[in-house]
């Protein structure tokens, strides 16, 4: 089951990267912590936007994986979950 969820997560990420048309270098270009200076730079801002868009794509699939692991694998009842 977890393999299916892993495939689902990999699939949405790779499909999004295909449509974003961004290179790994561009994705790594901004410092790990996005800062104000990076956001003012139009080139870096493009990378930032691409990363935000990628994050939005895997937010729900990763949420699903968290729910599956906590409830089905480790028997913890999840009442609510919030994301950004």
């Amino acid at each position, binding site marked *: 089951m977890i393999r299916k969820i892993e495939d689902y997560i990999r699939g949405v990420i790779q499909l999004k990267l295909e449509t974003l048309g961004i290179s790994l270098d561009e994705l790594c270009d901004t410092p790990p912590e996005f800062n104000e200076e990076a956001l003012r730079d139009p080139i870096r801002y493009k990378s930032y936007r691409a990363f935000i868009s990628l994050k939005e794509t895997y937010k729900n699939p990763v949420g699903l994986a968290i729910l599956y*692991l906590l409830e089905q694998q480790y028997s913890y009842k999840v009442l609510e979950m919030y994301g950004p």
Partner: protein
Amino acid sequence: MVHDLVAGQPAWEQGISGRDIDYIIVLEKLPPRELIDAIENYLDNLVGSAITNYFFKKKGCTTLEPYNKVIKHNLVELHTILPNMKNSYGINSSVFSVPVERLDLKGFRKRIMELRQSIEKLGFLEDYMH
């Protein structure tokens, strides 16, 4: 638009963060921190590897090191809380609430059930073929 929050304000406006997704999970009982760290680490590497593998297959890079390790930053962060701790995370409904989105657990559970059913169907077909 998705952003990380610090003290209830978008982190990027404060010049902080932006790489990871912070999940706030409300549970009946708190799991041990080691378990949460292990899940966090597993998901971090899963997402990071998916990103790197895509570029590796496209010949856009020569490394297989997960993206999270390349940028030295985690991509997924889990915050587990009890229902009575919601106020301190600013997620009780009020006009002053932190702008976080409540994720659709019902939808997630339905999707998990569908995945399980598709696996069972596949198992049945495999048995039938043999």
